[in-house]
């Protein structure tokens, strides 16, 4: 029994990590209808940004203290990337989006390797091996923190999209770009905001992951494939879907890894993905309706 409960909690915690990265990805898709193949690399950039700031401040700050700075840097980076790389290909079709974002992914990896070398870098953390004890269950403290930040982010984003003018404008653009434009919404500005927020969330994820993982140019690839499955499972463009999809994937991965084989765990996740796609092609939490180009 204890094993089953530990496995559920392990799954929820790593699921929270997936959800953290998936929220940004689904936001970008929801508004711009772009599948961003460079999202893992934005996580990597967030980790390196944390590393640079950590050393700039004489290794005296924790990665959590650096979170606001990392968020601002990544927000600005997102805006630049949107304006320079993405905006010129908007409306050119899915192939253009795939090519530009996968090219960007490759460029970012190589730029990181050029600046930082391929060696592993670390942000020292006093809580790397720390855990919370609940009865006989142990919860990794860095993952607990990442989980709660994921919850807060989802709530904040949902609140932003529902209750602010900008959020409502972003939602209207995601529903129908042409009509939004006719109603006076500055579509170009909404695209920049949405993309920047997506990149910012990736950067925040990266910052929160530095106590758990070492930093190297290809760290983003560890999460990319799983996070795409999470986003599609939850429903493309659905923020809450991305969150719960992440938790579901984490739990499935852990159950299969614990009770069967770790080698089968990724296969189980994608089997779940296939089953869900066959039964609910729009995702588990989608409200239906065709995606508009």
């Amino acid at each position, binding site marked *: 029994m204890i094993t089953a409960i530990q496995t559920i909690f392990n799954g929820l915690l790593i699921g929270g990590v997936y959800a953290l990265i998936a929220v940004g990805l689904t936001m970008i898709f929801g508004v711009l209808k772009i599948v961003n193949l460079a999202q893992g690399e934005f996580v990597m950039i967030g980790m390196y940004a944390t590393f640079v700031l950590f050393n700039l401040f004489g290794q005296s700050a924790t990665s959590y203290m650096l979170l606001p700075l990392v968020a601002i840097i990544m927000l600005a980076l997102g805006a630049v990337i949107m304006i320079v790389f993405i905006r010129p290909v908007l409306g050119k079709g899915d192939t253009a989006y795939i090519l530009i974002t996968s090219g960007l992914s490759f460029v970012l990896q190589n730029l990181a390797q050029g600046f930082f070398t391929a060696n592993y870098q670390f942000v020292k953390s006093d809580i790397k091996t720390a855990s919370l004890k609940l009865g006989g269950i142990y919860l990794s403290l860095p993952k607990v923190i990442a989980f709660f930040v994921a919850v807060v982010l989802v709530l904040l984003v949902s609140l932003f999209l529902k209750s602010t003018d900008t959020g409502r404008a972003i939602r209207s653009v995601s529903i129908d770009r042409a009509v939004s434009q006719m109603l006076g919404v500055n579509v170009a500005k909404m695209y920049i905001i949405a993309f920047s927020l997506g990149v910012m969330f990736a950067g925040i994820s990266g910052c929160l992951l530095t106590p758990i993982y070492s930093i190297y140019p*290809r760290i983003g690839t560890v999460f990319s494939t799983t996070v795409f499955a999470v986003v599609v499972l939850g429903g493309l463009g659905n923020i809450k879907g991305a969150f719960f999809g992440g938790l579901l994937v984490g739990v499935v991965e852990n159950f299969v890894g614990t009770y069967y084989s770790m080698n089968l765990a990724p296969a189980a996740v994608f089997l779940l993905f296939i089953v869900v796609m066959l039964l609910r092609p729009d995702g588990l939490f989608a409200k239906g309706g065709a995606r508009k180009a």
Partner: protein
Amino acid sequence: MNMGKRLIGLLLIPIMITSLFAGCGGASSTTPGNTSQQPASAQGGSVPTQAEQGLSDGSTGGDTVKIGLFACLSGNNADSGKIVRQGVELATKLVNENGGLENLGGAKIELVVTDITSDSTQVAAIVERVLSQNPDMACGLGFSTSGVTLAAISVFENYKMPFFTCGTNNDITTKGYNYVFRNVCNGTAFSDIQLEFIRYLQNAGYGGTKLGIVYENTAYGISMAESAEAKFSNADGLELALYESFSPGFSDASSLVTKLKNAGCDIVIPCAYANECSLIMSTMAQMNYSPIVVGGGAGMLLPSFGVDMGESVNGITSASCWNFDSTNITNSAACTAAVKQYEETYGDFMAEHAGLTFSHLVAAAEAINYAGSTDHEEIRKAIIEMTPEWELNLINPPGYWDFDEKGDNINAIALIVQWQDGRPRTVYPLEYAGAELMQ
């Protein structure tokens, strides 16, 4: 599109092209220790600079002998690749500074450095390209992992060029290849020493009877694990309670650690590289699980593992092919000086892969000198037939090497190291120990 955006786009093209090459490998030539030339790598540069990205032009340089250094300088194994390069560059510098290859008119060694990436699917093509462009290359070395070694073996066989590897997979020297050599023990030797050490701990009252072997499903991990399983499944007083593989590059070790705990394993043998080892060990600490750990080398011996784990690394043990403080080194003035010079040059202790590739370069140099020729067959013959005399060849435990026809150093032994104060110290066998076992 307006002119401004077009200009930005045009400006970004060379930046993107440059960034693509920043991360790419290439072959470059350096001659560390040649006082007429001061390349950056002689000062301990760990990554090819932009200037070093050019391909070798194939010239011999007249008074130099080319040796190919094939290292994983990018990708997931870049950590060990950097260390490999450092070990070889230091050895080259020392050989060149001590007069070079006397029987070849004092010729200096010229390294042709190639990034073979960490992707074994690319290795063969990269090695083929470099060998075809450097027909005068005497031999090759580097190859820090079994995966890249197995990918490159057939290329060296085709070119009939001897090469040295750190790979421990048993298949490397048992499939009839004629040109591969390794100054390291194999997977079977690792499991022998692990069993010996566990018995030693049991006799010393440290307990432990239920074993868990967890390994990455790569050439290295599978070889280590299969050897360990064969050894431990029939060992008296020991029960193999868990034998589990995983794919490298996983994001979460908690299900693996939960399985180990559930199986009641009080001795764990992880066989993985740095990232995965750190994740497994830190997850064990988080889940309050403290078995005896006797690692299968690789990632558990890298400096980055010690840095990543911080103080919690202390006490962890692992099998190893080489360590900087074993008595074969401390009893030799030249070897002690070399280890010290490494630390002063690169700012870190000399890790296993650096020591192994250092020993490979020295072995290759003495063999080429003995042969008095850069002919591949003469070099191969020299490696097998000669008795080494250079003192630096004592750097590999237990001392001077003796290669057989299959390419194994029949004298090679394995050690057990334990992390103490952030450095791995040799603790077993006792006659090679540089420190006492930490309780």
